[in-house]
């Protein structure tokens, strides 16, 4: 009995050997992102060490930064009466508001499609449930592709196969650009090291992104104290209009 138990443990250990022999140690240049009034985006540095002892040099490293999931309404325009009008609406979710996938080589060179699908690497793997209405599989796929296209245009989605640099097979550094319009919330980082199409190193962590300072107070007030917020806007306007008139009259 005891021998059998040991054998099972041993078998389990063997099966999970790559995961246990984690070759990655990772860190970020910042442990949180604060969006202030003058925030115009920044570059996040993600770096770490690779242990080449168990498997030799890895084939490549992939770093993923994923924003909080949210449900979105995607609308498609159609021409009616000579103008382009939103017609179909697809409510889907959850979908990440931010997704950067950077790697040291093209993703397809590092891992087969099936592996990437299982590990959920890359915007091509995005899927979401339709929250309302109906849509055929092709229609839904088109909508998802449009979602990726729109997010990419806003610099919120990015895939870059040259943004991870491996130094001497032992160190790596990745750069991810964070745009000004990035959504706030709890971001997740994921690091993958690949060897022969399989994961030999994996780390994950969190990165909180918050609006701080006056912007935060205003954002909170706009949503939770909206009457007071609106009245303050009016009060400011009256004060400003009156003040300027007074200044210019005196001259």
């Amino acid at each position, binding site marked *: 009995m005891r021998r059998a138990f040991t054998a099972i443990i041993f078998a389990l250990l063997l099966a999970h050997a790559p995961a246990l022999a984690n070759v990655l140690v990772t860190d970020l240049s910042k442990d949180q992102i604060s969006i202030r*009034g003058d925030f115009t985006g920044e570059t996040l540095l993600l770096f770490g060490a690779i242990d080449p002892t168990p498997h030799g040099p890895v084939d490549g490293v992939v770093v993923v930064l994923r924003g909080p999931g949210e449900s979105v*309404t995607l*609308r498609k325009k159609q021409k009616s009466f000579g103008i382009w*009008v939103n017609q179909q609406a697809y409510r889907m979710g959850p979908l990440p508001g931010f997704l950067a996938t950077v790697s040291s080589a093209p993703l397809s060179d590092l891992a087969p499609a099936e592996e990437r699908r299982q590990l959920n690497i890359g915007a091509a793997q995005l899927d979401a449930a339709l929250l309302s209405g109906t849509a055929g599989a092709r229609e839904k796929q088109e909508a998802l592709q449009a979602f990726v296209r729109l997010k990419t245009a806003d610099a919120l989605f990015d895939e870059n196969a040259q943004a991870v640099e491996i130094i001497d097979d032992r160190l790596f550094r990745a750069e991810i650009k964070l745009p000004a319009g990035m959504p706030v919330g709890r971001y997740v980082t994921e690091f993958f090291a690949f060897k022969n199409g399989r994961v030999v190193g994996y780390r994950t962590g969190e990165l909180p992104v918050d609006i701080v300072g006056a912007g935060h107070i205003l954002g909170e007030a706009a949503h939770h104290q909206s*009457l007071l917020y609106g009245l303050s806007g009016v009060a400011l306007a009256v004060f400003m209009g009156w003040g300027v008139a007074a200044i210019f009259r005196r001259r």
Partner: protein
Amino acid sequence: MQIYLPIAEMSAHIMTLIGMGGLVGFMSGMFGVGGGFLMTPLLIFIGVPPAVAVASEANQIVASSVSGGLAYWQRRAIDVPMGLILMAGGLVGSYSGVQIFKALRAQGHVDLLISLSYVLFLSVIGLLMLRESVQALNARRLGNPVRARRPGQHSWILGLPFRMRFRRSKLYISVIPPVIIGFFVGMMSAIMGVGGGFIMVPAMIYILRMPTNVVIGTSLFQIIFVTASVTVFHAVENQTLDIVLAVLLMIGGVIGAQIGAYAGQRLQGEQLRALLALIVLAVGARLLFDLIVEPQELYSISAMSSAGETP
């Protein structure tokens, strides 16, 4: 310096916003028009979500009409009772406008509503202004003085029931027409982010037959209250008021308006008015173009998620 606009969720250069406020303020100071009907489309062109542009511009107009209205208050060129009657209609109109806005926003049609309203109004106003300034230019060239149109006889509309005496306007008319005019202008204000002076002033002159010396002051007086209510209603119902954006526009706007008013007293108005008419038509044409030409991207993500949904 770039500045982050917390509700629009974008960042823009601070001088772009103040500069836009200044330019539009200059034109409004010069020509005595509110400028909202140029500012809202400009904000949309630089990427501000239309719903945020409308609410924040309404807030800016509060500042510019207080600034302008004070001068008329001191000259006693405001018919307060008339202003209050117009305002009563205006408040109901602005509330209804915000509700329409909210309903269409949920269906994804509010951008279309804003664009269509602008195309309609900008082309009408642009053409009227152009016609007027061309006539004035021709008259000047021929040496004829421009004949001011004179109010004619009171029409039957003004004899409807609930008549009231308006001493400063020297009128004894029914309150129904001003309430209805106020209602429509208030609704327009809520949907388009304008003060509506460009509709209100002609309506006061040609429909209510008010004397021209109290028209602008009274119009500004009611615009203060109507745009203030539009600001508050949008803030509460749609949460689209961006105070940072509004304040930057105010700074530019109030300064621009003072300089514009100063310049307006010294410059030849007709050519500039023709130019303004062309600008108005160009903005309208651009909006129409965007509606008619097949967009490069047929899809859009609607920014509803921040309005209370937690992922």
